[in-house]
């Protein structure tokens, strides 16, 4: 991974003082958009590799910052256990301090289950995971956990939105040697740690929302299992006898896809 001299300067600065870092970024901003092709190539390679996976499990820890009215930030920790079978199976257990949600998708319907409250809602779903993300986001305002895993390497990826890309250097995430990359795009700075070698998987992701003055962050560290065990029942919700069925609010009643 060749580095440009400019980036080396920036890295040195990071180890020093905040004003120096600021200066480095300002210098970057003053120049034409600075894109390290090693970084964008790595992103593309990761996306292409993700598309080759027919089944996978990701267990991750997440931390999401919420900003209170007075600007104070509160971190909400959680875990995600995601099992995916392409093209039409998904199960995700999301547990945070705010509650528990399990998502099921079997190529026919989508279910969200609030395990503690024991409410669930089931709606018709498109046939593939690729379409599911759009419907959930646009029609119901639901974002799949670790949604980027479903976008990278597809035509829904917004790689073109990246305005700056840098190869930060090697890093150890959970004992795995990764390469650390940093990207900027409108309203968002983000970093991804990609496993070195033949399995270029994202091991860590950090998002900094830059169009909010409090700059809240979301971060997740992922552990991968490329040979998960499941059967078709894993992706279909079987409601407990005392579970209560409720409505999932359609944000676009009368419009959008079913």
């Amino acid at each position, binding site marked *: 991974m060749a580095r440009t001299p400019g980036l080396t300067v920036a890295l040195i600065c990071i180890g020093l003082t905040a004003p120096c870092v600021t200066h480095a970024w300002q210098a970057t901003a003053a120049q034409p958009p600075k894109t390290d092709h090693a970084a964008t190539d790595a992103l593309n390679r990761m996306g292409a590799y993700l598309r080759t996976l027919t089944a996978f499990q990701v267990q991750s820890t997440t931390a*999401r*910052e*919420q900003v209170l009215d007075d600007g104070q930030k509160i971190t909400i920790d959680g875990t995600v256990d995601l099992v995916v079978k392409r093209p039409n199976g998904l199960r995700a257990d999301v547990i945070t*301090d705010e509650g528990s949600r399990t998502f099921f998708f079997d190529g026919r319907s989508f279910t969200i289950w609030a395990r*503690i409250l024991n409410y669930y809602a089931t709606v018709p779903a498109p046939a593939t995971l690729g379409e599911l993300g759009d419907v959930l986001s646009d029609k119901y305002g639901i*974002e799949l956990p670790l*949604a980027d895993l479903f976008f990278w390497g597809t035509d829904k990826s917004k790689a073109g939105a990246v305005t700056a890309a840098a190869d930060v250097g090697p890093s150890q995430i959970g004992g795995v040697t990764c390469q650390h990359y940093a990207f900027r795009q409108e309203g968002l700075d983000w970093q991804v740690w990609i496993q070195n070698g033949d399995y270029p998987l994202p091991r860590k992701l950090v998002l900094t929302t830059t169009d909010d003055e409090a700059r809240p962050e*979301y971060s997740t560290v992922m552990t991968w299992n490329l040979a998960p065990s499941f059967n078709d029942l894993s992706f279909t919700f079987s409601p407990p006898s005392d579970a209560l069925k*409720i*409505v999932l609010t359609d944000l676009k009643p009368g419009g959008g896809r079913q």
Partner: protein
Amino acid sequence: VRMLHPIRVSTAMVVMVALTQTGLAAQRRVAETSVNRTTRVNRDEHVNVNRTTNVNVNRDVNVNVHRDVDVNVDRRYYGVGCCYDPHPIATAAAVTTAAVVTAAVIGSVVHSLPPSCSVVVVGGISYQHCGATWYQPRFAASSVTYVVVTAPR
């Protein structure tokens, strides 16, 4: 699936906004969680959707309507296993919300239920009957909210 009449839905939206603007619902901004989502369509539209729904993204059962409420209050709930934690602060918050909504206006939205509700299933959809008021629990994005409805038939 029984859906609310559109007029009721829009009333619910108005009330939700009103509650938000008066600070009754904790107005929390959150970090983006997807690199690809933020710029996927119209960013502003998505942000609005995000923040509207995330106003209600709070703990199950009781919304921390006051930001000075101890964060730990709600966590107690998870050891309880059901729908209402009679913790004094939680109760106070819920009562405040209910009082402002004033005699449970049809279409208004609350984030937690008063005590002593019973579940009634009509047409396969679950309602909560609390005193004289009927609530329809719904998922608004991933959050559970309760819309005041007329008695289901």
